[in-house]
């Protein structure tokens, strides 16, 4: 028989374990978790900007393409007030080449042209995004690299590097931890927004901060 003292301590231990577990799970769900920084080449805007946006994106997703345009407009309007960091969340079940696209975009970033390569991926997403998994890698990836004067050999080596895949997998794991299940998903100063409509709504909540920072 467990004596009364032990029973009390066991009950207290159970309560501590239960409450702490629930608290951590809630903190994950409600995004009290600090964002992992994106690599430099995927981050745009001043580090001290009052509004920080993290976007989980998939290069084959049409809504992400639309959102990219909106984000570019916002950066133009609110310049100093905004910092945008991109994170990859390729929806592999519907877009078989998204992971490759994300890896190539990062490898283009390593050569200083993430933004340009990403723009071409969005522009041509109907071509490479619709390619079937069995048909071999779409030639578009190499064509975009050629268009931007990137070293394709280096990009291929980089995309096969386990370190590149590791960074992509961490982005995906982080998205899943935060309950991201659609693209584009944004976190505007920690507040979730799905799609460019919600992004604008969330950004409007920080309108004062944005305008104040944008003033010359």
């Amino acid at each position: 028989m467990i004596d009364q003292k032990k029973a009390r301590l066991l009950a207290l231990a159970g309560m501590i374990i239960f409450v702490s577990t629930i608290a951590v799970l809630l903190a994950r769900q409600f995004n009290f978790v600090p964002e992992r920084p994106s690599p430099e080449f995927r981050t745009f805007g001043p580090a001290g900007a009052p509004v920080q946006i993290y976007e989980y994106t998939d290069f084959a997703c049409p809504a992400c393409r639309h959102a990219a345009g909106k984000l570019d407009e916002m950066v133009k309007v609110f310049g100093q007030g905004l910092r945008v960091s991109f994170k990859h969340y390729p929806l592999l079940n519907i877009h078989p080449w998204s992971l490759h696209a994300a890896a190539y975009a990062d490898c283009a970033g390593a050569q200083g042209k993430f933004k340009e390569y990403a723009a071409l991926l969005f522009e041509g997403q109907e071509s490479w995004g619709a390619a079937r998994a069995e048909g071999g890698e779409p030639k578009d990836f190499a064509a975009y690299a050629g268009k931007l004067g990137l070293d394709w050999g280096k990009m291929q080596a980089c995309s096969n590097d386990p370190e590149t895949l590791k960074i992509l997998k961490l982005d995906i794991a982080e998205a899943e931890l935060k309950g991201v299940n659609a693209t584009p998903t944004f976190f505007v100063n920690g507040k979730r927004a799905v799609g460019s409509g919600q992004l604008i709504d969330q950004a409007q909540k920080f309108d004062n901060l944005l305008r104040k920072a944008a003033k010359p």
Partner: protein
Amino acid sequence: MSAKPETKELIGLLSRLAVAGVFAYAGLMKALAPAEEFAYAIESYKVLNAQLSLYAAYVTPWIELWAGLLLAAGVFTRANALFAGAMLLFFEVMLGQAWLRGLPITSCGCFGSGGSNSIGVEFAQNLVFLALAWAAYKFKSRWSADSYAETL
């Protein structure tokens, strides 16, 4: 000359809280981050393969968090201090073997993605916490759930 009972109690309490704080903080930081991040750190010790590293990364943060909180509250203090000491000893062995083999450990994985010191510094830090865990085990304190339960 032996220390006064109050001094011993105070040493026990402070040691317990220090070890508990480190465990709870380390566990929390890792439980709030993707398990893959910690798994990559475990993999770099070249003891477990990728799959086992991932399993370890799922489980370890929770164990650290719970052990830290239970130790802070002083629930089954001696058993918990012993357990924390055993974990610290295990971490020490992991760090030691990586140090001896000259493995390029960039992040020890101790506190999630937060920066980490060199292996040598981490090794020395762990030794200090091992000593504190021993003190928490050795010196019983009245400021604990264990002692409170005795008075009820």
